[in-house]
């Protein structure tokens, strides 16, 4: 199931909330939430829900064994990590590996083409955070299977994050503030996220699709409109979904970590990755970068660490070479910033901001391409190398019909918008209520009628 559907908003969510709020006691509430979360997941994956249940059981027992057999802790940890990665690797990367092998060796091995279970990248990473941090003795083992299952499956963050590390919610599983006040706060946040997704992301995505600049030859104008459309789509899509997740969590009394912090206002690529998909960056830092030595090593080793982490970050986004390249692209940029740019004395902020946006959006060009042919089309069109004109009728048409939307996209990416939301939440509540009801209304209009409703980070 997805949050941006009438089924979720008008049936699933109210039913869950009513039961949750009515039943007394934390235990009952946890059970309600767990059951609804399983239904939520099974709705989208009626068969692979079993895989997730097995993953939960496996990680639960890894924790239990680590506790009960302390002499074998390290071995159990490694087993747990390997099993989790094996499952993720098999379902996600098997096809890619086979294709690479075929390409290198000329064999014709068949890739079984398994469909990717929804959310597997997210819940596997969450399970890993539990297992690894348990080993590091950051908390005690979770003896209650149902509480552990709730941690993994909680539907607000199950399918698309934020990636919630176990230590962030450990206490909340047992004790949290469930109140109508939190219900209201959560609703406000949820509706903002819904509006971002349905009003901004979907429409900007349609602009990108219309441009078709990754497919054939287009004018430079068309290409840049398409690229901007995609760049804004993915931001509003993903940050909107995170807003909805955080809002939903709040309705149930949970405080989830923020995932986006006005990333398009960044003055450097380094800063960008501290503002975009923050929980993923934190995860990689905690569980890969720091164990590798982080930056407390010689420069060459540090560079290697960065490249490994960013290669993996790229691959996490998708099992294809373009994602790997996208990750490495950022790894190289980050190294360049650290060892070259940041050593310069004078670095005008505006230039930094502009170059960062340029780097990020060109990065999206790599991200959105599904093949080398598409990469060639994308960059050929963007820089006028593929024979397209500077502008043409199609591009002007797109500009006229999508220009205002792009302006909205840019406006809502500004820091002032986030400040406005927080200001409304804290000071001008009546205005917040009014704005959010209006947004809900408008969002319903699009939910009811729009068939084009993809979620880009869905298959990760």
């Amino acid at each position, binding site marked *: *199931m997805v949050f941006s*559907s009438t089924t979720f908003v*008008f049936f699933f969510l*109210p039913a869950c909330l009513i039961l949750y709020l009515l039943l007394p006691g934390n235990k009952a509430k946890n059970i309600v939430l767990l059951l609804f979360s399983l239904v939520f997941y099974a709705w989208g994956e*009626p068969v692979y829900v079993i895989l997730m249940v097995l993953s939960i059981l496996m990680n639960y027992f890894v924790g239990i064994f680590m506790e009960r057999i302390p002499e074998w802790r390290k071995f159990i940890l490694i087993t747990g990590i390997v099993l989790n990665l094996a499952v993720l690797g098999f379902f996600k990367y098997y096809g890619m590996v086979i294709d690479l092998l075929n390409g290198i060796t000329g064999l014709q091995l068949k890739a079984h083409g398994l469909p990717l279970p929804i959310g597997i990248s997210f819940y596997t990473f969450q399970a890993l955070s539990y297992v690894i941090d348990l080993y590091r003795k950051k908390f005690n083992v979770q003896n209650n299977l149902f509480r552990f299952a709730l941690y993994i499956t909680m539907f607000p963050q199950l399918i698309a994050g934020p990636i919630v590390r176990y230590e962030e919610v450990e206490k909340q599983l047992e004790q949290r503030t469930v109140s109508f*006040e*939190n219900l*209201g706060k*959560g*609703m406000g946040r949820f509706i903002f996220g819904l509006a971002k997704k349905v009003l901004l992301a979907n429409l900007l995505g349609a602009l990108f699709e219309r441009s078709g600049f990754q497919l054939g030859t287009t004018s430079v104008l068309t290409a840049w409109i398409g690229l901007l459309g995609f760049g804004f789509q993915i931001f509003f899509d993903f940050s909107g979904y995170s807003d909805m997740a955080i809002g939903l969590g709040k309705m149930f009394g949970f405080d989830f970590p923020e995932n986006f912090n006005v990333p398009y206002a960044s003055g450097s690529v380094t800063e960008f990755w501290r503002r975009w998909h923050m929980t993923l960056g934190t995860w990689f830092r905690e569980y890969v970068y720091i164990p590798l030595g982080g930056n407390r090593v010689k420069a060459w080793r540090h560079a290697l660490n960065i490249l490994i982490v960013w290669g993996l970050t790229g691959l996490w986004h998708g099992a294809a070479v373009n994602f790997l390249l996208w990750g490495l692209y950022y790894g190289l940029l980050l190294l360049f910033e650290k060892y070259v740019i940041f050593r310069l004395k004078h670095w005008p902020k505006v230039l930094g901001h502009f170059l960062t946006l340029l780097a990020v959006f060109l990065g999206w060009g790599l991200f959105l391409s599904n093949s080398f042919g598409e990469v060639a089309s994308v960059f050929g069109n963007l820089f006028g190398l593929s024979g397209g004109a500077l502008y043409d009728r199609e591009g002007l048409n797109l500009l006229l019909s999508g220009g205002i939307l792009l302006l909205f996209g840019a406006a809502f990416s500004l820091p002032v918008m986030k400040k406005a939301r927080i200001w409304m939440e804290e000071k001008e509540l009546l205005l917040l209520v009014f704005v959010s009801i209006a947004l809900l209304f408008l969002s319903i209009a699009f939910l009811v009628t729009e068939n084009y409703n993809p979620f880009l980070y869905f298959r990760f």
Partner: protein
Amino acid sequence: MKKAKTGTKIYIVYGVLCLAVLMFGGVLHLLSPDRTYSPTEKRNLASAPELNFNTLTDGTFMSHTENYVADQFPFREFWMSLRMNALYTVGTRESKGVTYNSDGTLSEPYQGYDEELLQETAAALNGFVSAHGFEQAYALIVPTASELSKEALPPYAANESERAYFESLSEALSGDFRVFDVFPTLEEMKAEGKQVYYRTDHHWTTDAAYRVFRSLSEETGWIPGEYTEMTVTDRFSGSLASKSGFTVPRADGLKIYRNRNESLYSLLSYGNDGEIRGGFYDFDALGADNDPYTVFFGGNFPLITVRTTADTDRTLLVFKDSYANCFLPFLEESYKEIVIVDPRYYADRAADLFLQKNYTDFLCLYNVQTLSSDTNLKMILAEE
């Protein structure tokens, strides 16, 4: 402190209010009866999903439920128009290939044609006509609204020339064909301020069809006749409105022309053994939940055979698209028999039309856009 308490109270009220709204929406949805058909969108609406082990495990129950909940949402038309108004406000003037023009009309801008398909269609027509030896073979290829209103189209909308297609096709058709250039006639009609095309539908108006008919009657020998005009509905919302979701300020009226000749009567038989109907008009089409344009012939059918009481021996074979539907009734007095074939639906062989029959005249009646992308016509004509 006080501010905090007020804030808390507002959040509480707001939370409960939102939950109540969502609950209310769900309950309202459950209580409202299901609709089977949407007249505004001209499609069937999703029905309640089937629940069994199979549909659960392959996920079809879930996707059907989602479609069902969206399709049967209460006040669907209201939400749709809210959405279109919002899109219009941010500059959307084109939706699903339909443009919202500055003169408050909808049309489909012409995207151009494939030269090879044009040549193949012409060749098929030429071959067909020379093989069957008609006394007259007519080609009536009609432009659509966007051709005549290029200045009203949104800026930078596609605006390939339909005339270019027409001229290319005319050249490719053999000397057997009388090709009618009705572009000037329609442009003249438009210049007079008359309505040539519907504002919400891709068809030409009955008035336009009549105008063209009259302009050709001398050349063809068709009997002009005398007619009474009747507006059968003044709230016609046509195909382009349904397709795009745009609503225009002024609705369309739909007219039919009744021949005043009392002794003139027609029997229509549908298909080979199908229904028999008296007259060209299906007035059930004007009921609620129906597409009013199907008042002509009841819609598009693979094969319709019209037998008239006209005092003539001439017979006509027509290959057409829906533009012919409002035009062909004008030929009632000029032919004893009219056989109407719609290649999009006709599944038999063209040769079957000539069993025990011959035709004096042949007519190919299409609008430019449909013909320039149609592959069915050449397929049916070309087979031996």
